[in-house]
């Protein structure tokens, strides 16, 4: 963004963004996990996470955000595609057709008995692709003068 010669004081915006970022981010994680039984899922959760990062980009400059979140978002998108492909290929291990998903109660160390669906892993891939693609688009547009 082109800087004007007017000295701007962003104290209020930056302080509020520090608080609001966590509200949006936690809500996006909630939306992601709620997707199996209620409205939500990987796509909306990913969009909301990237909008939280865009809020950081609005309050601070690109260099600060890149030092806080040192992630190459293009690689995040690629990793998300690999995760989604992996959940599809994992069904071959059980001798069932591609992208066959299973769900059932699983005993986890901290949470105890939890109903786990393997579609969550596919949704995680969607989430990572959406975050990666959105942030790549916005950073590419934002950095050009």
């Amino acid at each position, binding site marked *: 963004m082109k800087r004007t010669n*007017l000295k701007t004081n962003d104290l209020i*915006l930056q302080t509020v963004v520090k608080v*609001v970022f966590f509200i949006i981010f936690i809500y996006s994680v909630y939306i992601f996990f709620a997707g199996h039984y209620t409205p939500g899922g990987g796509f909306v959760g990913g969009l909301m996470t990237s909008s939280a990062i865009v809020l950081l980009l609005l309050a601070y400059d690109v260099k600060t955000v890149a030092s806080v979140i040192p992630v190459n978002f293009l690689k995040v998108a690629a990793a998300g595609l690999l995760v989604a492909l992996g959940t599809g290929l994992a069904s071959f291990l059980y001798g069932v057709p591609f992208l066959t998903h299973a769900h059932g109660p699983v005993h986890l160390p901290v949470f105890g008995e939890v109903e786990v669906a393997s579609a969550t892993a596919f949704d995680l891939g969607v989430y990572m692709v959406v975050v990666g693609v959105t942030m790549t688009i916005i950073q590419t547009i934002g950095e050009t003068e």
Partner: protein
Amino acid sequence: MTVISEWIIGTLILLGALLCLIASIGVLRLPDVYTRNHAASKGATLGVMSLLLGVFLYFLLIQGHFNSRVLLGIVFVFITSPVAGHLIMRAAFNTKIPLWENSVQNDLQKKRDSEKKFNEN
């Protein structure tokens, strides 16, 4: 119990709608950007907050369902809406949108002028 909670919920929702209506009338009637923004950000914030509180109490008292997302929405609107108003107001001032012609006090412009004079010397 149900009758009392119905009255509370109805009052909150009607109050919220009324405050939003008053805010929009203020946007239409007031003379310049700053007073309009004042009406919009204050009135709409309280209006939306009481509407959401009415919705929250409806689901809690009538349906017996604690909806924490609505509470989070109330907190979120309360934090962000005044900041949005502040940013719009500051952008308007920095692009030199004039005040209403009958305004008598402009402390920020005075401060900016004195800083400019200080920097020139």
